[in-house]
C-alpha cells in the first residue's frame, strides 16, 4: 500500500501537539500534606526534602505520569501554607522546606481538601476524566489543633472526601501520635472500604516512600479510570510490613 503514497505527504494527517485539546489527558489529583513542624528539623526534614524532590523529578520524566498527575502541596508547621497549587509534575516548583512551630494538622487537611474540591469541580466542568484522587498525610506528631473546631472540620471534610472516593494514606514518622492517626483513619473510612491504618515509616526512608508513590502512580496513570490496580509492596519503607 505504501508505495502508492507520495513521500512528501505528512505522516498521518500531520497532527502535532498544538492540535491536541488541552484537556486531552485524564487526571489523577494528588494532595501532599507535609508536616514541617519544629520536631521535623534536621535529618527528617532533609530526607523529606530529598524524597519529595526525587518524586517530582521522576514523575515529571514519565511520559504518562507527567501529563496525568496533578500535584498540590500543603505544609503545616506553625502555619499552614499552600506551597504548590495543583499542577502537572513538569510545572511543579519544588519547595524548599523549613521546619518550625507546632502541628496545625486539622487546618492543613481543610486547606488541602479545599484545593482538591475546587480542582475536581473544575475538571468535571471541563469533562476531563478523573482517577480517584490521592491524599497523603505525612507527620511526625499529632494535631495541635485537636479538639478545636478546625480539627473537627478537617475530620468531617476528610470523611466527605473519602466518601467521594479519595484515597487517603497517613504516614507516621518516628514520634507521631499513632493513636490519633489511627483514629483519624478509622473515623473517616467509608463503610464499603477496607481499613487502611496509618503506616509507620522506617527511620527516615522518605526516598523509599516517595519511590513507592511514584511506582504506584505510574501504575495508576497507565490504567483506565475505575480499573483495579495492584500496587507495589510497601516493605521498602513501612515498618512492620512484609
Amino acid at each position, binding site marked *: 500500500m505504501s508505495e*502508492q503514497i507520495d513521500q512528501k*505527504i505528512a*505522516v498521518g*494527517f*500531520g497532527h502535532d501537539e498544538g*492540535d491536541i*485539546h488541552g484537556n486531552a489527558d485524564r487526571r489523577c489529583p494528588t494532595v501532599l500534606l507535609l508536616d514541617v513542624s519544629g520536631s521535623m528539623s534536621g535529618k527528617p526534614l532533609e530526607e523529606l526534602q530529598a524524597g519529595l524532590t526525587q518524586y517530582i523529578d521522576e514523575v515529571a520524566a514519565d511520559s504518562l505520569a507527567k501529563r496525568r498527575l496533578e500535584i498540590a502541596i500543603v505544609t503545616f508547621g506553625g502555619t499552614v501554607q499552600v506551597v504548590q497549587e495543583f499542577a502537572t509534575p513538569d510545572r511543579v516548583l519544588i519547595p524548599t522546606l523549613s521546619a518550625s512551630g507546632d502541628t496545625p494538622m486539622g487546618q492543613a487537611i481543610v486547606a488541602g481538601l479545599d484545593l482538591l474540591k475546587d480542582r475536581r469541580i473544575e475538571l468535571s466542568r471541563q469533562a476531563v476524566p478523573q482517577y480517584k484522587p490521592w491524599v497523603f498525610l505525612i507527620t511526625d506528631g499529632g494535631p495541635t489543633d485537636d479538639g478545636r473546631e478546625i480539627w473537627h472540620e478537617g475530620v468531617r471534610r476528610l470523611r466527605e472526601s473519602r466518601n467521594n472516593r479519595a484515597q487517603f494514606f497517613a504516614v507516621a514518622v518516628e514520634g507521631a501520635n499513632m493513636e490519633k492517626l489511627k483514629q483519624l483513619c478509622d473515623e473517616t473510612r467509608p463503610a464499603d472500604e477496607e481499613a487502611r491504618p496509618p503506616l509507620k515509616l522506617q527511620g527516615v526512608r522518605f526516598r523509599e516512600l516517595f519511590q513507592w508513590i511514584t511506582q504506584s502512580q505510574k501504575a495508576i496513570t497507565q490504567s483506565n479510570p*475505575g480499573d483495579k490496580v495492584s500496587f507495589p509492596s510497601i516493605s521498602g519503607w513501612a515498618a512492620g510490613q512484609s
Partner: protein
Amino acid sequence: MNIATNLWSCAGHSIAGGAHIQAGLPCQDFFSLTSVVDGRRVVALADGAGSAKCCKTGARLAVETIISAIASHPGSLKDITDVAALEFGRQVRHELIEKSKADGNEIGDYACTLLAAAFEDDCSYFWQVGDGAWIVETTQGIECATWPYKGEFNNQTAFITSDNWESKWTPAIFEDAVAALGFTDGMEMFCLDAAVRKPHLPFVERIFSALRSQPSESEIALRIEQMLTSPVITEREDDDLTLVLVWKNSANAPG
C-alpha cells in the same frame, strides 16, 4: 465503474491499545466497511466491553449484523423512521442472544458499544449505542452527529446488550453531509471538546481537509493507521483505538 457505485469512499483502521498489549489482550474493537450496494454505503464499528468475556466476538457479530440489516433495508434511507431503525438494533440483539444460547453464555458476555452509519446520495444516517461518536462535515460546517453516552463514572457506558439500550439509541440524519468520522471511545479526547459538547476542531479539521483532494481509500487507510500509532496519540491514550472515515466523491471524480 459508474458514478452511483462510487459516490462514497471509506477507510478505517483499528489498533490494540498499549494497555491491552501489555496485558496480552487482543484489540476488542471491530469495524467493517462494506462495498456500495444500490447506491448505499454502510459502515459500522463496535468496542467490546473489557469486562465481558466474549466481547470481541460480540463486537464482530454486532457490526456484521447491523451492516447486513441496514444494507438490505428496502427503500431509501430518508424513509427509514426512528421506529424502523430500532429494528436494526433488535436484529443485532437477536443474533447476540442466539449466539449466547448456542455457546451457553449470557448476552452480557458479548457486551459492546455499536456505531453505524449509512450513506446515499442525498441522505446520511447515523446510529449509536454507548460511547464513541460520529462527527459529520456538511456544507454548513463540522458538527457532532452523535455524542458519547457516559454513566456516572467516565468508564461506564451503555451497550447494545444492555436492557435499557433503546433509551440510549441515538439516531441522526443529514441531507448535506460531505464526510463523516466515526470512532470508539479511545479517540474521544482528541476529536471532542467535552466542555462545550462539540468537535475539537483543530484536530478533526486536519482529517477532513485531507479528504478534499480526492484521495484514494488506501491512502486514507494508511494515514489513519499512521495517526493512530503516532506518539501524539499513543502517549496519551492506551485504550484500543478505531477510526473510520467516509467521504463523498465529487461527481466528476475519476471512477
